[in-house]
C-alpha cells in the first residue's frame, strides 16, 4: 500500500532530520480498519486541547494513547496492538511477536532486546527490584521463564496458567514488559560508563545509580522528554509546567486503511488547572475533548456554552458497578455492629429500605439505573436478577427482616434499639468530596428512618477515611462500586473477592489474602471464603467457560449477600467534544479499566474536519 | 479702621451632651497695631477661647453665635475682614492664620508633633506664608531659634520635641509663632514653663520684635507682673464677660471693678510677713469635708518634726544617643541632677526654684521612683520606719505610694484624655481600695470643690477644660490619698491669681492641719516665697543655695539667686524690669560666673554654711566671710 507523507513532517523529512514515512512505519504496521469501527478516515493536522488537574495527570496521555502490546477493543476483546500477534498455550505459555521495523519515537528499533533489558536488567535485577517481580508475573509465587527467541519474538512460560497476564498487559496502567534499552543502558551500572554514572549521580544529587536509572524511567507519566515511547504522542515539555505539549510520534505503528500513519492530530496541548475550575473552563471552550473532572451536574451548564463555543456535550455511560454504594464494614471493631453487619438479613433490609427511584430522579434526572453494585448490562456476564435482587424499595419486607433479627424494640422517636439499648444510628463515613454523596445520604436517611434506623453522615478527609476503615473504626462507608462494571469472563474478578486491604467492606480479609495470610484476618463468613476460593479457581481456570461459571457464581453470591449496597449505576458522564472533531463516538462508556477512558476508542484516529 | 483687631460683642458657645455652655458672653475689645493688650482673668473665663476664635480654630463643638472679629490685615493694605464670616478652612482664613496672626499655645508640651524635627515644624509656617527656598528657610529658622534662646540653634533644628525640656519646647513654640513675623501675636501664657530670667528674655524678645515689626500682641497671662511690664492696655475677663478694660496705668493705678480689686489683692508678694495669708476672691471651707477625716495618725511618741524625706548625693545622667544610620554616634551624657542633698522635715514645705531645665522635675521624679538614679539615696520616714526608697520591693513601694504623691508639671499630659474627671480623681482611691463607691464619690466631690471647680464638670473629659481647670484636676487627684508628702511640680503655674491664692491657702491649711509635707517646685518666686518654709535654688543639676525663706530672697548670696531675683516682674508699674540687662540665653554660663560661684567640671566646689541654715555652693577653699559680703 502507498504510504502518504504527513504534511507537518515534510520539511523535517526533506531536511533529513527524519527518515521518510516508509522508513518510519513498521514493515508490518497495525492497520486500523476505521470502517469496521464505524469511523471515517480523516485528515492530518490540528491540535487537541485537553484540561488536566495535576502534574501527574500527564500519565493520562499514556492512558489515552493506549498503545499496548495487547489491547482491548471496543468490543472488550483482547487483540494484538504493538504486537503483530501473540499465542497462548494452555494459558501458561505466551509467545509474543513484534512488528518488524517497529521503532521507538527516537527512531531506534524496537526489538526483543528491549524485553530482555526489562527482564534481566530491571525486573530480576536485585538492585533494581529488591521486592521481586510484580504480582501479575507470579503464579503461586513462581516466576515464569523468559526466552528471547529472535529479535522479534519473546516467550514467557509459567508452570501453571496465568490468567492475569493478558488483562494486566492490556490494562490502562499496563504491565510494561519492555523498556527502550538503548536509552536506559547509559544509566545502568552493568552497561553504562561507570565514571559518567558517578558524575551524574553527583550532579543530580541522586542516591545511587538505581535512583539515577529510575528517575529516567517515566514511561507511564511520560514526563521524561528524553525517554522514547511507543505511544501516539510524545511529550516535549519538561516538567514542572502548567502546559504540556505532546507531539506526534513519527514512528508510530498504526496506519489507517488509506495508508495514512496515525495519529491524525499533530499535537496535544494539555493545560493544567484546578480541578474545580475545569468545568468552567470547559464551558468556555478551552478544551476540545474532555471527560475528566466533568460531572453530570455540569451538564446543563456545559450545554449552555455549546452554541457559543462550537462544541457538543455527549453523554457516555460510566461503567462502574455502582455509581455510589454503601459498604458495611464487616471488619468493624465494634462487636455489636460487626455481628449485625455480618448478618445478611440486616444488609438486605438496609438495601430494601432505600428509595433508589427517588434518588435517581432527584440527583440523576432519572437517567441512571437503579440497583445493586454489580456488572452492567453491556457485560456478557450480566443478568437482570443481579441488578434487582434485594434492591426494590420495600419497607415492609425490610421491617420484617429487621424484626426477624430481633431488632424489635424501639424508642419514643421510633428508632429501633440495639441490643445494648442504644438507638440504632448508623454513622456513614464519606470522603465528602462532592455534595452528591451527602445529598444521596440525606435521601437514604429519610427512607431508613421509616424502618427505624437513623443515618448519620460523617465527612472526613480521604486518607483519614481510608485509615479509619482499615482500622475498623467505621460502621459503614460510601464510595463508588466495582470499578470494572463491564467485565468479560477473562477479566480478573478480584474485586468480588477479598484481595486487598483497600476493600471497604472487608479490609482485614482483603489484607489477609493480599499478604497470603501474613497480616489481617481470615474471612469469617463462609460466603466470603467461598468468594476467595472462586477467585483462586479463576486464576487457574482452564477455559473461558470455567471462568465464566466462576464469575457468575461470584456475582450471584454478591447479589444475594449484598456485601455492598449499590444505589444506582450506569450513570452518565458528560463528554465535551469539539464539533470539528471526528470519530469520537456519540455513545460510549467512560471507564478506567477496561477502557482506559478514551483509549479504547483510539484517540489517534480522531481528526479535525475543516470548516 | 485704626485698630488691627476689633472684637465686637463676641459670643461663643460649646454644645456638650448636657446642653450648651456659653464660654464667651459678649466680649468686645480692640488691639491697636504695634501695641500689647493683656487679657487677664479667672481661669476658665474664656481667654483661650477668644484666642481660638481669632485664629478660627475653635474645636468642633464650639461655635461663634454672635459678634464679629474685624481684622485689618496689613498684608492687604488694611483691608478689613470679618474673621467670623470666613470659613475656618478657606484659603483666606489660612492666609491670615499663621501668616498675619500667629499663636503661642498654652500647652507647649503637647503642641509639637513627635515625628517631625523642631526645625521642620518651625520652617513649615515660613514656607507656607513666605516664598522662601529651603536653604534660606533653614537659616531663618536657625536665627529664630537663636533669638528665643536655644543654646545651640544649629543642632536644635534637627532635634525632636521629646528631646527638649519643657522650657525649650515652649521656646520652640514661640519661635514657630514668630518666624513669620506676624502682625498680631497671640501669646497664651507663653512663659509659664520658664524661669523668670528666661521669661524676661522672651518678653524682651517680643518687645523688640514689636518695635521692629510693629507687631501687636495679645498677651494672655495670669501673671500681673508680666502684665505690668509689657502691656499697654489690659482687658479683665470674668466668666466670659469683660469686667474692666483700659490702659495699664488705669488698671493698676485705678482698678474700678470689685473683681479686679480682689484680683490685685490676691497676688503674693515678697513683702509678706511670715504667716500672712493671701486673700483669695473667695475662700473655701474645707474643714467639714471628708478630706479631714480619718487619716492614719502619726505614731505618738515619735518626734513630731522628724525628717520626713532625706535626699543625699542624688545624681542622674541622661544619655541621649544621637544615632545615625551608620555607626552608633556619640552618646551625649546630660547630668540632669548632680549630687543633690536636702532634707525635708515633717510638716515643712521646701521650695525648689531654678532655671528651666536645671533638673527640678528630675529630682521630683527620682523621689517618686519614676526614674532611677545613677547615684545617691532617698530615705523616707514612714512613721518612724526609715525606708530607702530605692531599695524597697514593688509591693512595699505600692503601699508607700499612698504616702507620697506628686502633681505633674504638665497638667494635660498627666490626665488620661479618655477618662472623665470623676474617674481621674477617683482613680487613686480605687487603686488603693479606699472607701465604698459612695464614699469615693463624696470624696471626689469634696476635692473638686476644694480646688474651686464646679462639681457639675465631673462628667466631662479633660480636653474640654481650660488650662487652669486641668491643673486643678491634677491637684485634686494628688490630694485624694491624703499623702504624707506631696511633691508639687509647678502646681499653680496655670492658675490665675485668685484661684492661685485659694489653692495656696489650701496648701497652707492642709500643711497645718494634716501636717502635710511639700516639695514645692515653681518658677514663680513670689509664690515659693509665700508657701515655702525653706527654699533651695537649683542650677545645672546642683543646689547652689538653700536657706529659710525669710533669709533667702531678702539676703541672696549666690550669684545665680541674685540674678533670678533681678528678673522677677512685679505687678507694679513703678518697678518695671530693665530688659536691657538680659541677654538672650537667659542665664550666662556657670563657668563664667564671678569667682567663688563659678561651677564647672574642673572647678571643685562645696556647700558653705552661712549660719541660720543658710548654705551656699562655692568654690572649695573660699572663706565664709568672702561669701557673706
Amino acid at each position, binding site marked *: 500500500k502507498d504510504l502518504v507523507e504527513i504534511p507537518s513532517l515534510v520539511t523535517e523529512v526533506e531536511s533529513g532530520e527524519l527518515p521518510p514515512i516508509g522508513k518510519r512505519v513498521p514493515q508490518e504496521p497495525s492497520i486500523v480498519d476505521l470502517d469496521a469501527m464505524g469511523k471515517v478516515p480523516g485528515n492530518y493536522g490540528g491540535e487537541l486541547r485537553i484540561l488536566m488537574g495535576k502534574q*501527574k495527570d500527564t500519565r493520562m496521555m499514556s492512558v489515552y494513547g493506549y498503545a499496548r502490546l495487547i489491547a482491548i477493543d471496543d468490543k472488550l476483546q483482547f487483540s494484538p496492538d504493538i504486537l503483530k500477534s501473540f499465542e497462548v498455550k494452555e494459558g501458561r505459555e505466551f509467545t509474543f511477536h513484534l512488528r518488524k521495523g517497529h521503532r521507538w519515537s527516537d527512531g531506534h528499533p524496537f526489538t526483543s532486546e528491549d524485553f530482555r533489558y526489562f527482564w534481566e536488567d530491571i525486573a530480576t535485577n536485585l538492585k533494581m527490584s*529488591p*521486592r521481586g517481580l*510484580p*504480582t*501479575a508475573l507470579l503464579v503461586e509465587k513462581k516466576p515464569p521463564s523468559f526466552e528471547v527467541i529472535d529479535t522479534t519474538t519473546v516467550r514467557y512460560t509459567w508452570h501453571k496458567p496465568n490468567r492475569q497476564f493478558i488483562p494486566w498487559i492490556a490494562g*490502562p496502567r499496563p504491565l510494561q514488559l519492555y523498556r527502550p534499552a538503548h536509552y536506559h543502558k547509559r544509566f545502568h551500572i552493568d552497561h553504562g560508563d561507570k565514571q559518567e554514572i558517578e558524575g551524574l549521580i553527583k550532579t543530580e544529587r541522586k542516591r545511587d545509580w538505581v535512583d539515577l536509572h529510575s*528517575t529516567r524511567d517515566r514511561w507511564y507519566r511520560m514526563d521524561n522528554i528524553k525517554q522514547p515511547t511507543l505511544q501516539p504522542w510524545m511529550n516535549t*515539555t519538561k*516538567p*514542572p509546567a*502548567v502546559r504540556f505539549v505532546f507531539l506526534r510520534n513519527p514512528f508510530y505503528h498504526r496506519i489507517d486503511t488509506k495508508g495514512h500513519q496515525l495519529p491524525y492530530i499533530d499535537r496535544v496541548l494539555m493545560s493544567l488547572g*484546578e480541578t*474545580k*475550575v475545569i468545568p*468552567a473552563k470547559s*464551558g*468556555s471552550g*478551552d478544551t476540545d475533548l474532555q471527560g475528566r473532572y466533568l460531572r453530570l451536574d455540569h451538564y446543563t451548564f456545559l450545554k449552555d456554552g455549546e452554541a*457559543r463555543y462550537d462544541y457538543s456535550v455527549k453523554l457516555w455511560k460510566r461503567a*462502574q458497578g455502582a455509581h455510589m454504594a454503601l459498604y458495611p464494614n464487616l471488619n468493624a471493631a465494634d462487636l455489636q455492629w460487626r455481628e449485625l453487619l455480618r448478618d445478611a438479613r440486616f444488609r438486605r433490609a438496609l438495601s430494601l429500605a432505600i428509595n433508589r427511584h427517588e434518588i435517581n430522579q432527584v440527583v440523576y434526572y432519572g437517567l441512571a439505573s437503579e440497583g445493586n453494585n454489580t456488572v452492567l448490562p453491556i457485560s456478557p456476564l450480566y443478568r437482570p436478577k443481579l441488578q434487582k435482587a434485594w434492591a426494590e424499595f420495600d419497607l415492609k419486607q425490610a421491617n420484617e427482616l429487621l424484626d426477624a433479627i430481633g431488632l424489635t424494640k424501639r424508642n419514643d422517636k421510633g428508632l429501633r434499639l440495639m441490643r445494648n439499648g442504644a438507638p440504632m444510628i448508623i454513622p456513614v463515613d464519606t*470522603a465528602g468530596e462532592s455534595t452528591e454523596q451527602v445529598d444521596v445520604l440525606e435521601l437514604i436517611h429519610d427512607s431508613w428512618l421509616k424502618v427505624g434506623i437513623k443515618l448519620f453522615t460523617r465527612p472526613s478527609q480521604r*486518607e*483519614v477515611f*481510608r*485509615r479509619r476503615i482499615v482500622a475498623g473504626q467505621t460502621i459503614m462507608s460510601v464510595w*463508588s462500586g466495582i470499578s470494572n462494571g463491564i467485565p468479560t469472563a477473562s477479566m480478573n474478578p478480584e474485586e468480588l473477592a477479598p484481595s486487598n486491604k*483497600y476493600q471497604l467492606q472487608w479490609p482485614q480479609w482483603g489484607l489477609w489474602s*493480599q499478604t497470603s495470610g501474613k497480616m489481617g484476618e481470615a474471612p469469617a463468613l463462609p460466603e466470603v471464603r467461598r468468594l476467595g476460593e472462586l477467585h483462586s479457581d479463576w486464576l487457574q481456570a482452564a477455559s473461558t467457560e470455567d471462568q465464566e461459571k466462576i464469575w457468575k457464581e461470584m456475582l450471584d453470591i454478591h447479589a444475594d449477600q449484598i456485601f455492598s449496597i449499590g444505589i444506582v449505576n450506569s450513570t452518565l458522564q458528560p463528554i465535551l467534544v469539539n464539533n470539528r472533531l471526528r470519530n469520537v463516538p456519540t455513545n460510549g462508556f467512560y*471507564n478506567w479499566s477496561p477502557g482506559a477512558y478514551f483509549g479504547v476508542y483510539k484517540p489517534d484516529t480522531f481528526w479535525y474536519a475543516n470548516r | 479702621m485704626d485698630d488691627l483687631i476689633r472684637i465686637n460683642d463676641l459670643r461663643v458657645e460649646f454644645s456638650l451632651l448636657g446642653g450648651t455652655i456659653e464660654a464667651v458672653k459678649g466680649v468686645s475689645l480692640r488691639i491697636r497695631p504695634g501695641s500689647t493688650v493683656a487679657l487677664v482673668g479667672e481661669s476658665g473665663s474664656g481667654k483661650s477661647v477668644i484666642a481660638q476664635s481669632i*485664629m478660627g*480654630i475653635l474645636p468642633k463643638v464650639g461655635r461663634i453665635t454672635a459678634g464679629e472679629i474685624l481684622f485689618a490685615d496689613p498684608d492687604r493694605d488694611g483691608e478689613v475682614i470679618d474673621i467670623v464670616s470666613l470659613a475656618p478652612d478657606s*484659603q483666606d482664613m*489660612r*492666609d*491670615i492664620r*499663621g*501668616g498675619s496672626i500667629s499663636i503661642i*499655645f498654652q500647652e507647649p508640651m*503637647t503642641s*509639637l*508633633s513627635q*515625628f*517631625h*524635627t523642631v526645625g521642620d*515644624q518651625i520652617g513649615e*509656617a515660613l514656607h*507656607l506664608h513666605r516664598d522662601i527656598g529651603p536653604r534660606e528657610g533653614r537659616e531663618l529658622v536657625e536665627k529664630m531659634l537663636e533669638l528665643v534662646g536655644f543654646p545651640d540653634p544649629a543642632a536644635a533644628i534637627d532635634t*525632636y520635641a*521629646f*528631646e527638649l525640656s519643657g522650657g525649650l519646647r515652649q521656646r520652640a*513654640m514661640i519661635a*514657630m509663632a514668630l518666624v513669620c513675623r506676624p502682625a498680631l501675636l497671640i501669646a497664651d501664657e507663653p512663659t509659664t514653663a520658664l524661669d523668670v530670667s528666661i521669661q524676661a528674655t522672651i518678653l524682651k524678645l517680643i518687645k523688640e520684635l514689636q518695635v521692629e515689626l510693629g507687631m501687636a500682641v495679645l498677651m494672655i497671662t495670669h501673671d500681673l507682673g508680666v502684665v505690668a511690664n509689657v502691656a499697654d492696655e489690659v482687658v479683665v475677663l470674668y466668666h466670659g464677660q469683660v469686667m474692666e478694660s483700659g490702659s495699664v496705668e488705669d488698671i493698676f493705678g485705678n482698678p474700678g471693678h470689685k473683681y479686679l480689686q480682689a484680683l490685685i489683692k490676691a497676688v503674693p508678694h515678697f513683702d509678706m510677713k511670715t504667716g500672712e495669708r493671701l486673700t483669695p476672691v473667695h475662700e473655701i471651707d474645707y474643714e467639714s469635708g471628708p478630706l479631714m477625716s480619718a487619716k492614719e495618725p502619726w505614731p505618738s511618741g515619735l518626734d513630731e518634726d522628724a525628717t520626713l524625706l532625706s535626699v543625699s548625693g542624688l545624681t542622674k545622667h541622661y544619655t*541621649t*544617643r544621637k*544615632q*545615625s*544610620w551608620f555607626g*552608633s554616634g556619640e552618646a551625649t551624657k546630660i547630668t540632669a541632677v548632680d549630687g543633690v542633698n536636702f532634707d525635708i522635715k515633717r510638716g515643712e514645705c521646701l521650695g525648689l526654684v531654678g532655671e528651666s531645665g536645671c533638673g527640678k522635675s528630675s529630682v521630683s521624679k527620682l523621689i517618686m521612683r519614676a526614674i532611677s538614679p545613677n547615684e545617691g539615696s532617698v530615705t523616707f520616714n514612714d512613721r518612724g520606719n526609715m525606708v530607702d526608697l530605692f531599695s524597697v520591693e514593688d509591693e512595699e513601694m505600692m503601699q508607700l505610694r499612698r504616702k507620697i504623691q506628686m502633681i505633674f508639671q504638665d497638667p*494635660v499630659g498627666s490626665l488620661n484624655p479618655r477618662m472623665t474627671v470623676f474617674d481621674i480623681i477617683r482613680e487613686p482611691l480605687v487603686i488603693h481600695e479606699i472607701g465604698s463607691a459612695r464614699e469615693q464619690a463624696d470624696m471626689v466631690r469634696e476635692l473638686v470643690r476644694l480646688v474651686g471647680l464646679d462639681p457639675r464638670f465631673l462628667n466631662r473629659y479633660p480636653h474640654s477644660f481650660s488650662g487652669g481647670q486641668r491643673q486643678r484636676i491634677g491637684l485634686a487627684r494628688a490630694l485624694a490619698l491624703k499623702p504624707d508628702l506631696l511633691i508639687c511640680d509647678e502646681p499653680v503655674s496655670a492658675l490665675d491669681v485668685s484661684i492661685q491664692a485659694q489653692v495656696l491657702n489650701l496648701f497652707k491649711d492642709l500643711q497645718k492641719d494634716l501636717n502635710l509635707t511639700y516639695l514645692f517646685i515653681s518658677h514663680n518666686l513670689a509664690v515659693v516665697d509665700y508657701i515655702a518654709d525653706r527654699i533651695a535654688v537649683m542650677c545645672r543639676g546642683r543646689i547652689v543655695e538653700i536657706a529659710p525663706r525669710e533669709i533667702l530672697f531678702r539676703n541672696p548670696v549666690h550669684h545665680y539667686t541674685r540674678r533670678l531675683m533681678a528678673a522677677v516682674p512685679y505687678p507694679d508699674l513703678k518697678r518695671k524690669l530693665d530688659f536691657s540687662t538680659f541677654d538672650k540665653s537667659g542665664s550666662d554660663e556657670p563657668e563664667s560666673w564671678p569667682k567663688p560661684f563659678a561651677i564647672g567640671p574642673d572647678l571643685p566646689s562645696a556647700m558653705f554654711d552661712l549660719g541660720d541654715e543658710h548654705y551656699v555652693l562655692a568654690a572649695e577653699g573660699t572663706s565664709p566671710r568672702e561669701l557673706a559680703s
Partner: protein
Amino acid sequence: MISYIIQRCLIMIPTLLAISMIVFFIIELPPGDYLESYVAELQAQGENIDPDHIEFLRENYGFGDPPVQRYLSWVGGMLQGDFGYSFEYKLPVSEVVGDRLFLTILVSMATILFTWLIAFPIGIYSATHQYSWGDYGLTFIGLLGLATPNFLLALILLYFANVVFGTSIGGLMDAEFIGKPWSLAKAQSVLEHLWIPVVVIGTSGTAGMIRRLRANLLDELQKQYVTTAKAKGLSPFKALVKYPLRAAMNFFISDIGNLLPSIISGAELVAVVMSLPTTGPILISALQSQDMYLAGSFLMFLATLTVVGVLISDLLLAWLDPRIRLQGANAK
C-alpha cells in the same frame, strides 16, 4: 543603627530554626503520608494500584526513618541548598518552585500596592468627611468587597469575563509564554494579566485597611499638634497628611510583616481558582497530597519571606519613628 540591624539579623537565626521545627512538625502532623494519600487519590479516580508497588515506594522514599532523622537531613539539606525531593513531581523541590516564588512575590506586592493606593485616599476621605454620604458609600463598597468570599468573586469574574467579553481569564500570562524564559513581551503579558487577581485578592484587604486607617486618623485628628499645624495656616488636607497620617503610618508599617503572609494566604485560594502560576496552588496540593518536602520547603520559603518582611518593617519603623530611632524617650 548598624548594630541594631546586625542584632535584628542575628535574632532571625533562632527564629528561622524554630520555624523550621514547627514546619516539620506541622507537615508531619496529619496522619498518613504521601503514599497513603497517593493511593487514596488514585482510587478516587477509579484507578487501582498494586499494593506491593506502594510498599516498594515506601521503602524507597525513606518513610520508615524516624522523624528526627528526617528533620535533620531536611534542614541539613536546606543549608546546603538542597530542598528535598517532591514525590508528586518526582523532581527536586528547587526545580518545582521555578519562578513561582517570584510571581508570588510579584502578585503579593502588587496587591499590597493596590490596597494601599485604594485604601489610603479613601481612608483619608472617610476620616475627614466622617459621616458624609461619601464616607458611608465608600465604607459600604469596601465592606461589600470584604463580605464576598474571594474565590466566589474570582469565579464570578471568571464567568462574566467569559460570557460578556468572551475571554478566558486565569493564569498570569498568555499561553505562549508559559514555560518560556523571561522576556520583555512576557513581562508585558504578565502585567496585562496581573490586575484581575490583584483586584480579586485586594478587595478583601482594602476594606480593612480603610476602616483601620479611618479609625486611627480619627484618633490622631484630635491631637493638639494638629491644631498647631492648623494654626500655622496649613490646609486641612496637608495638615492631615503631614501629621496624623504620619502617625498612623506607624501602624501600617509595623503591619507589613503581617501583610505578606496574610496576602499570600488570601491569595492561595484565588490562585487555585484562577490557575495562577504562584506558590499557592502547589502549596495546597502539596499539603493535600502530603508531599512533605515540597510543602515543607515552600513553607520555609514563605516563612523566610515573612521574617524578612518583619525585619524590614522593624527597620522601617525605626527609621521613620524618631522616638524608636533615638531611643530618647525610653531612657529611664
